[in-house]
């Protein structure tokens, strides 16, 4: 699929030729006005993402595949023991997360689901945020939904959490006193110093960021964007960020799951 999209775009200078890229046929990476970070990325970065052999994130996918079959914890079980073939059991799971999780009375994202399985189902230690293991298994699970449209639900019991996420997105913070909207709603396509702003979509996470030289979670990105405006970040997996994740993910409903993407 990704190969076809690339073929539809002139090989060089596609973005430059069109200024802001709005008129380019981005295939599934653009749904109405909603555009994946892919469509703001440079040609080289896109090429890295499109070619499984060039995409550095595939090292983490391999680690994830290994973990899927590895029994750990007191229950002596592997993911595969309960979920079988990931290609089938996980086929569209990532398109629906974060979900409202009844037992917690709040939202749960994929990383939290995986650690829930480890703790309650496997009786194993949870993986640490940003560990290669959690990034790897998360990328592996999400990758099973690759190409399928994001479709999170924000009504019913999820609604109040969605509203909190939306409020966070629109709230100014930090010494620079800026909200997410100032960069990702008002100025996608514009340069902010050497960075081209995108719509700040979540569909590619975990993402291999060239600047990080590693895979990173969406919550890492949130912490970075908070820090850049000199705002105190929230902890990984905090309610604030999981609510924000639902709102940000919803903004990209309809975009294909790209995990693991490559970004500058």
């Amino acid at each position, binding site marked *: 699929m990704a190969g076809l999209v690339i073929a539809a775009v002139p090989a060089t200078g596609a973005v430059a030729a069109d200024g802001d890229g709005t008129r380019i046929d981005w295939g599934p990476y653009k749904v109405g006005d909603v555009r994946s970070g892919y469509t703001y990325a440079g040609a080289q970065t896109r090429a890295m993402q499109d070619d499984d052999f060039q995409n550095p994130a595939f090292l983490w996918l391999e680690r994830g595949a290994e973990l899927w079959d590895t029994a750990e914890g007191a229950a002596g079980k592997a993911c595969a023991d309960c979920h079988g073939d990931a290609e089938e059991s996980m086929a569209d799971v990532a398109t629906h997360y974060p979900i409202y999780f009844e037992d917690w009375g709040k939202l749960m994202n994929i990383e939290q689901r995986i650690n829930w399985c480890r703790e309650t189902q496997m009786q194993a230690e949870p993986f640490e945020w940003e560990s290669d293991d959690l990034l790897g298994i998360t990328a592996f699970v999400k990758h099973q939904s690759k190409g399928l449209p994001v479709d999170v639900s924000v009504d019913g019991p999820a609604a109040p959490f969605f509203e909190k996420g939306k409020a966070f997105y629109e709230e100014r913070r930090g*010494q*620079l006193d*800026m909200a997410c909207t100032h960069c990702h709603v008002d100025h996608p396509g514009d340069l902010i*110093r050497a960075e081209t702003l995108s719509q700040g979509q979540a569909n590619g996470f975990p993402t291999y960021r060239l600047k990080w030289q590693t895979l990173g979670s969406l919550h890492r990105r949130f912490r970075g964007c908070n820090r850049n405006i000199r705002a*105190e970040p929230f902890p990984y997996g905090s309610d604030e960020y999981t609510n924000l994740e639902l709102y940000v993910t919803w903004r990209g409903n309809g975009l294909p799951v790209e995990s693991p993407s490559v970004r500058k």
Partner: protein
Amino acid sequence: VPASVPAHAAAPPSYTVQGGYTIPEPLTDTPGDPAMGRNWVINRKLGNCLSCHQMPIPEEQFHGETAPALYGVGDLYSAGELRLRIVDPKVLNPQSMMPAFYKTEGLNRVLKGFEGRPILTAQQVEDIIAYLMTLKDTSKAKN
């Protein structure tokens, strides 16, 4: 980051906005130095004005595109009007994306190490105004 940022004076910013559009009184007794001001607008830890504005600073490669170009801004505004625009642009436009560079009140969840102090010192603001007053070439404005 905090280590490379110079410590600011402890006194909270104080200034008077007149008529809702200008701060006519300089913030310091020492007149602004335009050459220093040019440094502060480039410096990513200080003004970093270039992250949003285009300015006649050809040696810097990337100029932002999220705000008006400042090529002729010294012709457009008085020093007092520029002072308000740097000290607290939200007086003029409450929706503004532009940070208030000399304000500590009413901020939300400021990163540890930066609390209670403005982005720029009073003298840096004055230096920047002196620099902006030298920008008179509206013909070079790019947007």
